[in-house]
Each structure stands twice: as C-alpha cells, then as structure tokens.
C-alpha cells in the first residue's frame, strides 16, 4: 500500500464522525453579504427575517434564520391544485400554534415547474415573477414562506443570478418600475419544511398519535438541497451532518423509526416535463429506483417527503406498477401532513387523504386511527355541501384536533 493511501478502516472511521463544517472554510461566499452590499448601494431592499426566529445550521456551517411568525404563505400550484391536504396541513399547523399569517391572493406560482419542463421563458421573466411575489409580501409586512421545493430552489438560484448580474438587475428594475413595485429580496429564502423543522419539538409536545411502531423512509427533495446547496439545513446529529436534516429530524422527534435505503440521493423521477407528457420515464424511475428499493431494503409503512413533485410522483406512479406485479404499495405523505396527523388533525378535512392514490388505510390502521369513522364524518360534510346546506368546509369545521390519545 502506498504511504499516501488511507486504510479502509480509517476511511470508515472518518465517515462515521459527524461533519461540523467551519463556515470560514466555506467553498462559496455568503450571498447575504453581497445582498447587504447591494442594499447599501441603494440597488435593492433586503427584507429582514422578523423576530421571533430560530437559528439553524446550514450545509457549510453558516447560520440561517427561520422565522416563526408573521408568515406570508407562498403557496405551491401543484400542492394546492392536486394535493390540497399538503397546504391545508401547513396552514392548520400555523393555526394550532397561533401564528400570525397571511394566505395571499396577490401571489402567482413561481412558474418554475413550467420553466424546468419547457424552457418557454427566460431568466429576466423568471426573476421578475419572483420579485413581483417578494414585493407583494414585503408590502404586507409579512415574511415569505415558500411551500414548494422547486419554488424554493428556483428562487435561491434566481436570487443568486440577480445578485451576480447587473444587466439582469437593470432589466428587472425597469419592469418593476413599470409595475410600481420595489426591488425587494428576502435575506433568507425559507422553505415551509424548515419552519416545520424548527417547530418539531413543539409539535412533538402536542403529539396525540403514538407513531413509534411506524417505519418511514425519507425522500429528500432535490430542489430543496441540491440547488444552491448551502442554504439547506444540516445537523451533525442527523445522518452525521452528511445529509439534510429536514424531514428526518421531524420524524425522529415524533418517535417514528426512520429507515435508510441506498437510493436516497436519487430524484423521484418527476422530471417536470416527464410527469406531464412522458410518464413512462417517471413511473419507471419512481418505482424501480425509489419505491421498490425502499420496499426491499426497509419495508416502510410510509414515505415522507417535502416537495410537491415528489409527493405527486411517488404516490401516483404506484398504480400502474401494481398492475405489473411490482413491489409497491407505500403510502406517500408530506412532512406537514405527518405533523398534523401526529397532533390529531382530521385525516380528510385537514390531511385530505382522499386526494392520494396509493392506499393509506393500512398506515392509519397501524397508527390505531379509525379512518372509517372519520371518512363517514367527511362523507356527511360532502352530502351537506351537495344538499346546499353549507357552501363548503371552513376552518371552523377543521380546526379542532379530532384524534385523542
């Protein structure tokens, strides 16, 4: 063996040690410093994270502020359109903790799904869509909390491009002037799963559903931690600081067994364009590289993730695979839904599980939740709506936790 080569045992030992990066040695500069410089030159406004906030550690050991209160919910089109229990659970959690929040109508999607799918846009338009939403949030005095993993990743990248390219800033400012909007950039781009992450112990304090018998596999969302990787939360106590801590830390706080599987780094197969017009790729990848691997290596009761596309892909891809006798049948939930369920939220009024395709009944039964009872209640809601007795459900109908210890 060459004197320069490390023995395998030492490599393993090093890998077993938690990673505690020194921010002074970060491979990339801190973008926030550049933002403050631009602000000092009068080029833009930096929206500060309001108090109270929690400080967390990110990939390179830097500190990131995650706001707790005064949140402007930047909703996700894929969640609101096709998995509404995802959004409902986030807002339900906010309401349970008495958070002052806004659910704005002055918001468009980031349009990033379309951009990654079809490229029928351009950098200036994409930055402007972001800045228009940020200005709308700033005008209200609330801080943007981004629901979609793709919006979060897209905005991080667009923010970087805006900061690094004066020509883009000039073009963006020209159109914002026309719209009568200021050029505002938040000092932290914050994903809702980061809010859930910092609230996890408070969520666990109010847990009413015992989840210790449940095994979960975590799918970390690509656009959360791969795009502008340094903004994602890492914790030496979770995976030794070698993978993002969001989602996993929540599940552990709730007593859920988190089982590892070898293809954790793989994407879900969403593909942006593929999920809409070329799903043979999406189905194959989701089943062969994710669900079957989880099933074979960990046999989880559920898969938990934190992004729109991942929930959609992993959930909806399992039906066709079942017809081909593939090893599928793993219910897929967002972390917000798991947290809400743990605190006793109604499985249908809040989690809206009837929008999910893969069978979630065995999971609820394992958790000791009488889903038939709650479904019967929800069917009564639907019947009342159809009879015209009520226009729809409101928070008054869904606010109260219904599951007790």
């Amino acid at each position, binding site marked *: 063996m060459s004197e320069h080569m490390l023995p395998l045992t030492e490599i393993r030992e090093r890998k077993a040690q938690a990673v505690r990066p020194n921010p002074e040695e970060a491979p990339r500069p801190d973008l926030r410093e550049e933002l403050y410089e631009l602000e000092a030159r009068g080029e833009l406004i930096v929206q500060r994270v309001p108090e109270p906030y929690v400080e967390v550690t990110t990939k390179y050991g830097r500190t990131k502020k995650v706001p707790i209160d005064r949140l402007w919910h930047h909703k996700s089109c894929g969640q609101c359109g096709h998995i509404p229990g995802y959004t409902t659970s986030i807002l339900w959690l906010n309401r349970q903790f008495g958070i002052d929040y806004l659910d704005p109508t002055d918001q468009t999607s980031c349009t990033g799904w379309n951009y990654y799918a079809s490229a029928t846009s*351009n950098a200036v338009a994409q930055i402007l869509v972001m800045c228009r939403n940020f200005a709308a949030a700033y005008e209200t005095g609330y801080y943007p909390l981004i629901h979609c993993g793709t919006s979060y990743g897209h905005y991080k990248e667009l923010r970087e491009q805006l900061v690094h390219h004066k020509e883009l800033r000039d073009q963006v400012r020209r159109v914002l002037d026309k719209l009568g909007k200021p050029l505002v950039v938040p000092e932290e781009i914050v994903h809702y799963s980061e809010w859930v992450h910092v609230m996890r112990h408070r969520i666990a304090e109010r847990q009413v559903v015992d989840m210790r018998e449940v095994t979960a596999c975590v799918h970390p969302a690509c656009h959360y931690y791969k795009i502008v990787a340094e903004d994602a939360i890492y914790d030496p106590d979770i995976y030794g600081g070698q993978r993002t801590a969001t989602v996993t830390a929540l599940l552990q706080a709730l007593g859920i067994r988190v089982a590892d599987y070898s293809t954790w780094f793989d994407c879900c197969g969403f593909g942006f364009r593929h999920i809409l017009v070329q799903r043979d790729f999406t189905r194959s990848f989701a089943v062969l590289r994710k669900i079957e691997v989880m099933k074979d290596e960990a046999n989880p009761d559920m898969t938990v993730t934190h992004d729109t596309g991942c929930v959609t892909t992993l959930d909806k891809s399992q039906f066709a695979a079942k017809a081909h006798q593939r090893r599928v049948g793993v219910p897929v939930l967002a972390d917000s839904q798991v947290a809400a369920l743990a605190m006793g939220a109604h499985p249908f*009024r809040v989690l809206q599980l009837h929008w999910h395709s893969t069978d979630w009944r065995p999971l609820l039964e394992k958790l000791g939740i009488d889903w038939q009872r709650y479904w019967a209640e929800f069917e009564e*809601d639907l019947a009342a709506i159809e009879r015209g007795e009520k226009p729809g459900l409101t928070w008054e109908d869904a606010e109260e936790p219904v599951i007790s210890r």
Partner: protein
Amino acid sequence: MSVMTWSPTKGGERYREVPEERKRALFEEVKSDPRYPDFLYGCYECGICVSACPSARFYDFSPRVIAQALAREDVDRFYEILMEDIWNCAQCFSCVRCPRGNNPGGLVTLMREVAVRHGLEQAQQALQGYSRVIYKIMLKGNQVSPDMLQPDFFPDWGPWVREFSRNMAVWRKAIPVDTLRNITDAAWRTDDKTLRELYTIWFETGNMEVIREVDEGLYELLVEIMEEELEAAS
C-alpha cells in the same frame, strides 16, 4: 449503454447537412447567456454527474458529455445534443454535485431556451401535448389546476382519477383554506390585478414571443385574452 465515452470525432455524424455556421451561431447564443460562465468551469471527466443522473439510467444521455462538448466548443457534438438529448434531462440538478462546480442541468436549460426560441422541430415534438399547461401557466399563473386532472390525460394514475373527476366540484368545496375552496380552474384564487402584473411581465420580457415559436395559435389566443384584460383595466 448510457454512459458514452467522449469522442471528438463522433459529433456531427447525423447532421452533416447542417451548415457549420448554423451550429456555431446556436452555440454562441447559448454561450452568450449571462448565466453560462456560472454553469461551466471545465470538466475532469470524473463521471460523478453521470452516476447521480436519473436520465442517464433510462436514456442514452450523459451530463458529462454535455459539459465536455460545451467546454471544448465542439459545435457538431453540441448540435447533436441540442437536437437529441436535452429534452431527456429531468432537471433535478443531481449533477450539480460536480467537484468542479459545473451545472450540466443548467446548461441544458440554456440549450432548451435556445431550441424553443428558434422553434426547432425537436422542441416542438418534446412539447407536444403540453400546450394546455402553457395556457394555464401564462393565463392563471399556475402550472396545474384541479380541472386538469382528467382520466383521459392520466389513465395510468388509476381509478382514483375517475373518482376525483366525478367528485371534483364537491371535493374542492370541502377544503377549509379560503383561497382554495371552490376553485377548480386554478390552484388558488388570484387577484385580477396580480394576473395583470403577470401579463405585463410576459409582454415586457419577450416571453410571449417565445410562446409564439412553440404554438402560434395558442400565442394568438393568449395575447387576445391578456390584451383585453390589460386594456379593460387601463
């Protein structure tokens, strides 16, 4: 085998009839994007990007070859990739674990933009069946909406889609979130003023011209609706 060995002589075999100037002009358009220098720093040929790439497992696709072709300014190979490979990328950005800091997924995005801007046939083929999504995103500011969940479009999602389709109206009313309740043609309720601002962005940034290259009929329809909205408000 999906991981292709780099071969400078391989490029251009299938596109000999395309003039070198045409290939060079398209390449220069990609290279002139202000983001290009941030996405490409060189390539070790280590293949880490390929090992992380989902598309490399299922298609004859390699992010390493893309980075190599662009770094070498091999316009023949570039053209081949532009015509045959870029629409296979899943845009997950797993490839950004590149030790050189390359962003092959980002390079694909730039190439796609150029392919769309020039109305290349391959771009139009890749986006077949996609027009209704463009209609929705440009007009409503949402990629998807409940009324797009139709059994004929998602047959592989099983009987759930049919059940949903039957119950969409009442299920949407049974959502406690104010901005979602009873909304079926968009993901949430959006202010008219917000949408007008979005239309202004599309017009001011040349985005509508991009749509024209993809689908002229759709472009005309969108322009008519948007201009009517903007004029009514002014």
